[in-house]
């Protein structure tokens, strides 16, 4: 695990406060999408297929901050679209840092070098760079040659300037375990703080419908990648979530764990499915029929989903809600064996 102690402490105390308040459902990470516009059109992405007037729009900073206050989660992830195309990204990030929110700014890094001057290094800010593999695999995933070679120097520059940098990797069917392991080595060699990895969700609107992973194949792939993890690999995510991907833990989805806010409102029920929008966070939490989602519900859209936004909150809750979960997390962290 490579999550800084202060961040772990913030999350742990937050979860304990929710437990003491006997809140059955609470958010861990707000997924804040200020815009859908992007400078890439990746094969596995179902987030950017909208008419021009929607792609031209973006949320006002005030609306973003209102959502952050409403939600109350200790961490804010800013995906998109490409957040560095958001004209007020510097002001938004500064406001979030001022509020002591741990911010993951998810970027493909194409604009990172030229925008770095807009930001100040902080323990609260991490650039989470989208890297789907080594050069060949990454450029194929993002459907453009040369993006890997733009991202790597941008990562190096950000690290040299003292920013926290993590990577986020989405894996699809056909991924080579050996190449993924080489990719992990390469990211560690670059010096990133930690890596996040997840199987892709089978977005109905994504251009490539052929390579989404099914559950058993996901388990097999991640077992092959992670069964013998190298000591120097650092992951910026729960080790229990990684064990879940390997089929060693059985978790149910926590769809309210990473609530999503964008120009349409609060997305029901999660970051991946779009079954409608609520106007307020309270309305989202109180009126979404949560029992209709997750694997046990029988909802076919949830059957193969093992994506981090639904299951990482479950893993974190497992860590902090049970002695066994806590012990397992400590053991995995100390031994490095998943």
């Amino acid at each position, binding site marked *: 695990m490579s999550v800084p102690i202060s961040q772990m402490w913030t999350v742990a105390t937050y979860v304990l406060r929710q437990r003491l308040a006997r809140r059955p459902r609470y958010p861990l990470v707000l997924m804040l999408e200020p815009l859908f516009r992007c400078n890439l*059109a990746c*094969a596995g992405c*179902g987030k950017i*297929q*909208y*008419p021009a*007037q*929607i792609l*031209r*729009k973006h949320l006002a900073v005030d609306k973003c901050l209102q959502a952050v206050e409403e939600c109350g989660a200790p961490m804010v992830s800013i995906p998109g679209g490409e957040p560095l195309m958001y004209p007020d990204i510097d002001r938004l990030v500064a406001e979030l840092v001022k509020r002591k929110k741990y911010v993951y700014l998810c970027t493909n890094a194409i604009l990172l070098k030229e925008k770095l001057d807009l930001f100040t290094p902080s323990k609260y800010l991490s650039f989470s760079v989208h890297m789907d593999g080594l050069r060949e695999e990454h450029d*194929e995933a993002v*459907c453009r040659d040369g993006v890997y070679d733009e991202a790597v120097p941008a990562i190096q520059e950000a690290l040299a300037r003292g920013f926290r940098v993590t990577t986020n990797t989405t894996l699809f069917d056909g991924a080579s375990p050996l190449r993924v392991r080489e990719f992990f080595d390469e990211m560690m060699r670059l010096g990133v703080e930690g890596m996040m990895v997840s199987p892709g969700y089978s977005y*109905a*609107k994504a*251009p*490539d419908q052929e390579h989404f992973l099914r559950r058993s194949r996901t388990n097999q792939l991640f077992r092959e990648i992670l069964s013998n993890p190298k000591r120097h690999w650092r992951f910026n995510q729960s080790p229990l979530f990684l064990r879940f991907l390997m089929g060693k833990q059985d978790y149910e989805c926590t769809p309210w764990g990473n609530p999503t806010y964008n*120009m*349409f*409102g609060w997305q029901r029920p999660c970051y991946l499915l779009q079954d*409608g*929008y609520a106007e307020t966070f309270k309305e989202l939490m109180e009126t979404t029929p949560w029992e209709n989602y997750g694997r046990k519900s029988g909802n076919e859209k949830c059957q193969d989903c093992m994506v981090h936004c639904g299951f990482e909150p479950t893993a974190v809750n497992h860590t902090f809600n049970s002695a066994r979960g806590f012990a397992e997390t400590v053991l995995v962290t100390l031994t490095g064996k998943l």
Partner: protein
Amino acid sequence: MSLQGWVPDIGPYLTLEEVIEHAFDYRGNVTVVRRDGTEVVGYLFNRDAQPPEPSVQLFDEAGHGPIRVRYAEIASVRFTGKDTAEGNSWKVWMERKEREKAQPAPAPGA
């Protein structure tokens, strides 16, 4: 199969509620025709079929909104805008990459 260009015939075999569900799932602009003959062209991003007042929400072509239209006001919905999820960019990309891979590498010094 894309619904682009679809002009549904609302009646006993296809209800307004069903058409609105399709419009909600559609990633292009639609034309909502009101019973009074006026129209709203835009992206239908939300619908609430629950009583007491089922309604849809749209951003119009200029991006203004959200505009709320009650189900009771709607006569029909036409799928008039381009289906943005019906692109073939990935397919085109993959075909180009396959062609590139199939080409023999240039000889050293060529």
